[in-house]
């Protein structure tokens, strides 16, 4: 029968392959933080994790004098997204106005956040006018706490300019995006995978069905509300008749 207990805390640094073995008080702290984070609260952990982190430091400092020397260094210089200003952005902003929600760079990587109603138009423009002829990847991120639950991310590359840009759009649950298959044929499988893993559907897609999971699968595993043991309960035991031991 399914093992209903939670999986052992995966983030316990003691079992981690990390070369640096944390000292005992530190590892206790860290695992405590992880437990709070592991409860699928993606929107808040940002703040929630920040609080214990500050409390973490003095403990570590007391335990090991070597650790704090490395620790404070990356903290203050936490990179922030900077506004991205270029001819392309000005042109797009001039045409679409508030449809372009954000144009920023983060650690040197450019991205645009655009309204879901114009994303197809933007993608087409990026290919035809801006010569972003290679669609590297299409993927999504799930934020269940937000009203617009999903980020759909298009990673584009231009062979002519040797430049990468990410086009991001936010959609709510059940909203349909227009498929990019007509723009880049490579979107076929990439969008099928997004559909398979997140349940986001794309209109005008030639063959939208599951790609990695079997047709009889229930749910979309990369959604944050999909528990990691569901596969064991819902599929492995019923269909294969075996205990997976998870």
């Amino acid at each position, binding site marked *: 029968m399914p093992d209903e207990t939670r*999986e052992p805390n*995966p*983030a316990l640094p003691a079992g*981690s*392959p*990390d*070369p*640096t073995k*944390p000292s005992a008080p*530190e590892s206790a702290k*860290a695992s405590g933080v*992880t437990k709070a*984070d*592991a409860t699928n609260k*993606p929107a808040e*952990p*940002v703040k929630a*994790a920040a609080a214990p982190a500050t409390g*973490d430091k003095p403990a*570590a400092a007391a335990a090991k004098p070597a*650790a704090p*020397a*490395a*620790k404070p260094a*990356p903290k203050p*210089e*936490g*990179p922030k*997204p900077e506004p991205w200003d270029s001819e392309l952005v000005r042109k797009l902003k001039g045409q679409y106005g508030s449809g372009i929600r954000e144009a920023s760079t983060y*650690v040197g*990587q450019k991205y645009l956040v655009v309204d879901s109603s114009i994303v197809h138009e933007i993608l087409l423009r990026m290919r035809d006018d801006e010569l972003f002829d*290679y669609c*590297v*990847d299409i*993927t999504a*991120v*799930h934020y269940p706490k937000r009203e617009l639950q999903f980020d759909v991310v298009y*990673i584009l590359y231009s*062979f002519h300019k*040797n430049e990468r840009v*990410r086009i991001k759009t936010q959609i709510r649950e059940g909203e349909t995006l227009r498929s990019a298959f007509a723009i*880049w*044929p*490579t979107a*076929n*499988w990439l969008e099928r995978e997004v559909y398979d893993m997140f349940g986001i559907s794309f209109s005008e897609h030639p*063959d939208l*069905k599951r*790609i*990695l*999971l*079997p*047709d*009889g699968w229930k749910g979309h595993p*990369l959604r944050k509300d999909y528990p990691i043991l569901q*596969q064991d309960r819902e*599929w492995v035991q*019923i*269909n294969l*008749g075996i205990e997976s031991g998870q």
Partner: protein
Amino acid sequence: MKDPETDYRHAKPDQSGSGVMDYLDLDTKDQTFLDATELVLNMGPQHPSTHGVLRVILKLDGEKVLGTECVIGYLHRGVEKIAENRTYAMFNPYVDRMDYVAAVSNGLGYCEAVEKLLNTEAPPRAQYIRVILTELCRIASHQVWLGTHALDIGALTPLFYCFRDREEILKIFEKYCGARLTTHAFRIGGCIYETYDGFEQDCLKFCDAFLPKLDEYEELLTTNRIWVRRTKGVGILKPEDCIALGVTGPVLRASGVKWDLRKKQPYEAYSKFDFEIPTGLNGDTYDRYLVRIEEMRQAVRIIRQAVEGLPTGPIMAKIPKVLKPPVGEVYVSIEAPKGELGYFIVSDGSLQPYRVRVRPPSFVNLQALDKMVRGLLVADVVAVIGTLDIVLGEVDR
């Protein structure tokens, strides 16, 4: 205990007409595409030349291929979901299990991505060690490709030659980090292991010994009449099709596009080395063979330069013991033996990545199969699957 309603094995085929099960259902009349002259042939998933568990549904007219459909996912392990439940460091060994014949490259891409997220960089010595091992891994990956690809086409000897010589690379890996295949050689922030005594000599010895071996492979195949007949003009992919389909790596270069991330967007220490990017002319299976052979030569060149210029110094950057990258998202990609391997990582500032997306080169390249085999014969499908150099562990993740 079993509920017939939910029992997948006994499920009725999907009546909507979208599932592949339709093709195999013999009870109901199939209205998808069959007519008297067409035949549907199921190739795989347990087929020796599909390099794992790939199932290709071929629609045939006699022996001519009219269309294909790939059924993948037999090896799906949910790597991206696992990542969300592990810390950054704990997920590192998992990536080795995707492209298991080029595990070192996978690890490099992941470490690069997390380092970018942490806004740090490996120290120079670690970068050189990484380059050496990654290029050795590229050779090993190409050797597996060459051996199995030649075997599929009917040449048995290259398999033994390749695996014999690959052993020397695996020995270096084993001496360096204790593992031969899923090495987990690198850590976020650099390398964990200092090179062992005699590492440089081992690498140079391998380079010296390998180049004549490479000529041996070429002697067996390059002018072999059967090999040429089986590969020339087979599975042609034009450069514009490559770009539209997102195909990268040697397949793209064989079509004549001189594009290699090691040159275009250099990572690690690649900008310091002198090497060429081989390209093909026709984009056929034979050109892809030549490109990969030449890539092995260039890899040897890089290894020699890296070993000779191996700097001294620390091998680990100063990174916090508990990795907690700031909130943000990055996409970092490297030139893996099979193409562009990218990691898109979203951090919410906690110990675990909020989302890790792997952009697998094999998965995207496999999509070109249909385009490449239309109009060819069934035997050519085997050649084309081989030339795409897919690893199903990476396709399915």
